[in-house]
């Protein structure tokens, strides 16, 4: 890792120099450079995560800019991952960033996630989410799930072999449609996802593993749902050995 500079002096007391080195040695796969990907990648980059692999095949559009703060007006029309790379490099020059302007598919997901210590679901669709879920179960790499709509969001951390998988939680995807969302919602859920990654990598705190956080910003309610394996889950049943 590069030398630990004064950049991290305010956070090293939280998990020690050893924790900081664990962040620097880590590779995090971020699926999506949009609303959730913006806070996830930003907070991981400035926290000193060594390498981010960011995958997104979209171009920056003006309608993204109410929430996707990795991008600015001057980036409209640019690949999101390259726009994100510019922003993140400016925030932390020590970051190694692999920007991949591709769609995640069954044929590519294994090679894209190869070498990652943890996966972050910052996507906008359940097709990709289920793909990441299967990859997590196949490889044993943890997956931090997040999703938002309007003033609401949800997140959980999936530890393969320990917690229920995403298909246990959501055996049926919600209807997919373009939904309204305000940037602060993605900011809340994306920040919580980044927090989960930092906790996992540094070995601090209690993960939201086996618990689904449900957040409603409009009413200020937060619920935690304890989730359990579904005996009839055809996905995790194929991969997990031990089940709680």
């Amino acid at each position: 890792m590069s030398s630990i500079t004064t950049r991290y002096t305010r956070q090293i007391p939280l998990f020690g120099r050893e924790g900081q080195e664990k962040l620097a040695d880590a590779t995090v796969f971020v699926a999506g450079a949009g609303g959730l990907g913006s806070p996830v990648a930003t907070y991981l980059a400035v926290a000193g995560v060594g390498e981010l692999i960011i995958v997104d095949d979209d171009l920056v559009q003006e309608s993204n800019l109410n929430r996707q703060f990795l991008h600015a007006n001057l980036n409209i029309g640019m690949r999101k991952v390259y726009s994100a790379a510019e922003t993140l490099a400016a925030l932390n020059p020590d970051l190694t960033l692999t920007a991949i302007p591709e769609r995640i598919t069954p044929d590519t997901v294994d090679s894209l996630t190869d070498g990652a210590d943890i996966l972050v679901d910052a996507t906008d669709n359940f097709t990709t989410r289920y793909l990441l879920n299967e990859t997590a179960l196949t490889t044993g790499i943890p997956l931090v799930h997040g999703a938002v709509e309007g003033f609401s969001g949800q997140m959980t951390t999936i530890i393969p072999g320990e917690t229920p998988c995403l298909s246990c939680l959501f055996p049926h995807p919600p209807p997919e449609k373009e939904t309204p969302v305000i940037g602060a919602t993605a900011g809340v859920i994306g920040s919580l996802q980044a927090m989960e990654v930092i906790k996992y990598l540094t070995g601090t705190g209690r993960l939201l593993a086996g618990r689904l956080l449900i957040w409603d910003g409009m009413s200020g309610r937060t619920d935690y749902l304890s989730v359990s394996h579904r005996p009839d889950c055809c996905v995790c049943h194929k991969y997990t050995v031990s089940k709680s």
Partner: protein
Amino acid sequence: MRITIICYARFRDVFGEESIVEVPDSATILDAVRLLAGRVGPDADLLLTPEGLIRDYVMVVHQGSRILPAEAGTITLSDGDTFTLFPPVSGG
């Protein structure tokens, strides 16, 4: 029996944040959901199928545990119970 139903996200927009429904003894979660849905007219289809069953993507949380829609007709309620209805979201 008085049952409290808390709705999140777009369910809250349609059914209200916190609703009280009066149900007979030994009523189930499904019974209570049908009563709630019956208050809103055509928007009831956000929660219920045309057959009157809870849609398969709806998350029902009762006493901290997930109740699958298919199980909602078998979970009997007690006076004063609260449960939550949450529509999983998919945006990012």
